């Protein structure tokens, strides 16, 4: 087994043993979405109209919730120093940790989304595109968030700084994701939006580990 897979397996095992952390993001996601019918009123037409946006914004916030611990726990107990001295390049360390973050928080969000879409009365033909869009967006959130988490490592009040840094960067992903679901609901093609989202993901895949690794090296100096 390669060192990359070993680190991934370690992070997944840590997340499973501290099950509360992983469950918290999903619960936050569900509760956050459920708040909207209470706030806006149970008008089915209105809820169906706002469903894609509400689910996407809630997913984005839920993914942000667990992001500040991405590198912090390893930084605090000295593991990050040892990781930087291991045979694994820092880029691979960052990539493994971001992948673990997606598997632990992103994938449960995708699984919980259909249930929430049902709550919000999303039309049936919107379900496949909602899942498809989330499949592209959630890894993007983890990748962009990884850079933010690495940059705010060791900063005082990094937990507050992180959303301020990362949320603006989520905007393009949010725009194209919401547009792709909306276009299917209004009978248009979602293809251009999905292609743009895929393009963002393709750019973030190499750039995020690279940027995060540079920030981690700076944090360790």
């Amino acid at each position, binding site marked *: *087994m390669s*060192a990359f897979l*070993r*680190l991934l397996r*370690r992070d997944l*095992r*840590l997340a499973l*043993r*501290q099950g509360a952390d992983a469950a918290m993001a999903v619960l936050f996601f569900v509760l956050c979405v459920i708040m909207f019918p209470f706030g806006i009123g149970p008008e089915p037409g209105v809820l169906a109209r706002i469903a894609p946006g509400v689910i996407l914004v809630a997913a984005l916030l839920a993914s942000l919730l667990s992001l500040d611990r991405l590198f912090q726990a390893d930084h*605090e*107990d*000295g*593991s990050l*120093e*040892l*990781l*930087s*001295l*291991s*045979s*694994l*390049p820092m880029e691979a360390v960052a990539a493994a940790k971001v992948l673990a973050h997606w598997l632990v928080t992103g994938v449960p969000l995708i699984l919980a989304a259909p249930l929430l879409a049902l709550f919000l009365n999303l039309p049936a033909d919107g379900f496949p595109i909602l899942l498809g869009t989330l499949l592209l967006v959630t890894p993007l959130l983890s990748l962009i968030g990884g850079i933010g988490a690495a940059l705010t490592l060791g900063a005082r009040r990094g937990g507050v700084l992180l959303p301020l840094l990362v949320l603006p960067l989520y905007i393009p992903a949010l725009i194209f994701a919401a547009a792709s679901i909306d276009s299917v609901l209004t009978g248009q093609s979602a293809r251009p939006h999905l292609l743009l989202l895929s393009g963002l993901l393709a750019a973030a895949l190499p750039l995020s580990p690279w940027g995060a690794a540079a920030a981690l090296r700076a944090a*360790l*100096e």
Partner: protein
Amino acid sequence: MIQGQTPSTDQGLAAHRLTCLRGERVVFADLDFRLSPGGALILVGPNGSGKSSLLRLLSGLSRPFSGNLTWDGADIARDPDAHRARLRYAGHQDAVKPTLTALENLSVWAGLDGLADPEDRAERALAALAMDHVADMPGRYLSAGQKKRVNLARLALAPASAAPLWLLDEPSTALDRDSIDRLATLITAHRRAGGMVVLSTHSDMDVADAVTLNLADFGATADIDDAFEDEAVGAPA
């Protein structure tokens, strides 16, 4: 120039006019030493004299303000990957995860260092520090000394030929007398196999034929302007 065991060769680790800054303060300046295979260097000095800073410089975790470090005559900054592969660093933090058992903690590091059979190696390494009886205990139940021993057990994972340079930052802290003796045994065996050890200590650890470097002798002699001047003209070798 302070000489290690076998002087006048290029082999091993050498520091040339090493200067370390923290903030804008010179921690130590113009530090020269050489450590040859089988040698041991003990860093002493009061708090803040730069023992930990020097160990971090030697590990490549941070860079010197001026001067350089060489391994077998070649600058370590030129091939940081090779330098990382040849050293084992044990700092103040033990990097023990509370939810993983002692054995799992250690086998993760064995696997990340690219060693074959990480679980078997981790078991043997724990036994070397008499920790085999708590191998299945989660990290959160381990005492400070036991966590330290799990961290130090990383040293026993690979033979001296794979990772010849040990950098230990106050390894005897929180250890009981028996554990310190076991660590000393590990260090002796490592040096006999051609390994090198640099360690900092406040209490006296018995390390045979070790060279002692008092960092207090290298602090406060130079002020910051001198250090900047050296940098500007390029520190002579």
